[in-house]
């Protein structure tokens, strides 16, 4: 038996308000299932579970303010489920497994050990996560006809088209709370992390020319943004420099299991959030563009998942075409580095001994000097510059 605890959804989070349980005692859960909704300074976040098992008991009540690390539920590991299931096993009637998932094929679902009769919902009730309900309402999609892929066939965000018009901040979202959360995280960063800073200005004309050629053949919906080319190059450079990709925990560096890039997204009306694009180095330009669109849109419509807020192994901030020329980033703890991408500007540049107008961008790195020395950070920028110079390979 293990205890499912309130996760930390950022270095700044001290507690969260449990909004809703999406599972009941007796439900079988698998790693990655969304099991609850928690209200935080970053809005209502769907919380995933990180183990397989059976829900034995729900400890926290909806509405409760639960400190990070405090118990939310008891989970029985697979195998002992039958002994601890609160209700006697009732053979499932000949019901097809909760609407065939449209998503990736799940491991064959063992029969649920206990149909939780006392708490069973009325027949025909559609289980749906709040974020999915909001998006469905925004899109005017009837929930009854959707196949759900969440726990017990619950409809979650992944089951809905992502082209929903972004929603305004939900009523529970408090800009002042987000400001306070950013203040806490950044204060901790400046208090604890001995930053070093490096910068390198790089000629990106070739990379942008290649992008122009690609986009000339495409209609607007399929076009790529310069940010995606820069992100792709950065992800490859980070993969080659694992020393900066991970977390500082308990006085030592822990390397990440992949390049999970936190992409800083400015929220209109104030605030900042950096959801993770997982394994960004394995995505070619088009899938990376799709991932970027998805994560930016969901960040702005407050439809991110808990794991997207916590799994980033390094953060990138790209200032965009209206931003400043360069930035000295503040590392997001417990990460150990942050990469800044300035605005692309046209500057006189010496190429083959002559001065030419070239489009250049200033790349910056803030490194945690506890984890790495400037030499390693410099290698990252050198690798990134080399990738951008050889743009055809991106």
């Amino acid at each position, binding site marked *: 038996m293990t205890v499912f605890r309130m996760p930390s959804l950022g270095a700044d989070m001290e507690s969260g308000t449990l909004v809703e349980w999406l599972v009941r005692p007796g439900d079988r859960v698998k790693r990655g299932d969304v099991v609850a909704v928690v209200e935080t300074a970053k809005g209502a976040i769907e919380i995933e579970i990180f183990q397989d098992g059976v829900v034995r008991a729900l400890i926290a009540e909806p509405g409760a303010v639960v400190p990070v690390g405090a118990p939310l539920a008891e989970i029985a590991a697979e195998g002992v489920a039958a002994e601890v299931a609160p209700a006697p096993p009732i053979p499932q009637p000949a019901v097809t497994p909760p609407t065939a998932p449209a998503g990736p094929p799940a491991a064959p679902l063992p029969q649920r050990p206990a149909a939780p009769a006392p708490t069973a919902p009325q027949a025909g009730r559609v289980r749906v996560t709040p974020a999915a309900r909001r998006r469905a309402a925004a899109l005017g999609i009837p929930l009854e006809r959707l196949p759900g892929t969440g726990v017990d066939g619950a409809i979650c965000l992944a089951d809905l088209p992502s082209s929903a018009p972004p929603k305004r901040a939900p009523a529970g979202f408090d800009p002042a709370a987000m400001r306070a959360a950013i203040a806490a995280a950044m204060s901790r960063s400046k208090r604890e992390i001995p930053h070093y800073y490096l910068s390198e200005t790089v000629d990106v004309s070739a990379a942008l020319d290649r992008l122009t050629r690609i986009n000339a053949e495409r*209609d*607007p919906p399929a076009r790529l943004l310069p940010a995606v080319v820069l992100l792709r190059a950065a992800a490859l450079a980070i993969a080659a420099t694992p020393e900066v990709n991970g977390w500082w925990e308990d006085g030592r560096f822990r390397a990440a299991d992949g390049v999970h890039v936190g992409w800083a997204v400015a929220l209109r009306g104030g605030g900042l959030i950096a959801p993770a694009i997982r394994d960004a180095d394995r995505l070619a330009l088009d899938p990376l563009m799709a991932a970027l669109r998805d994560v930016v849109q969901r960040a702005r419509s407050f439809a991110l998942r808990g794991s997207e807020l916590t799994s980033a192994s390094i953060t990138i901030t790209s200032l965009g075409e209206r931003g400043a020329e360069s930035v000295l980033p503040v590392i997001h703890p417990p990460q150990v580095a942050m990469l800044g991408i300035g605005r692309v500007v046209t500057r006189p540049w010496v190429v083959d001994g002559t001065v030419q107008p070239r489009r250049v961008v200033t790349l910056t790195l803030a490194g945690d000097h506890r984890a790495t020395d400037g030499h390693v950070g410099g290698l990252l920028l050198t690798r990134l510059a080399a990738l951008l110079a050889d743009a055809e390979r991106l």
Partner: protein
Amino acid sequence: MTPSETKRLVAEILAGIAPEADISTVSGDADLREALDLDSIDFLNLVTGLHERTGRPIPEADYPRLFTLDGIGAYFGEAAG
């Protein structure tokens, strides 16, 4: 395309991109990106919306002509005329 038609079209598209944006306060010659705080993804979505509603291909080289409401009106007015 009259100025009011332009404004309505852009407002409809932006409603799906930046619901907070209040286009009624934006003057015809103001840069939409500045006035409404649109980033490059937002602007690409605006171009995509204009493309889908008008059928025009809108090459990237034409983007600067779409930075203002006046510019958008003129750009699609030409097509009609």
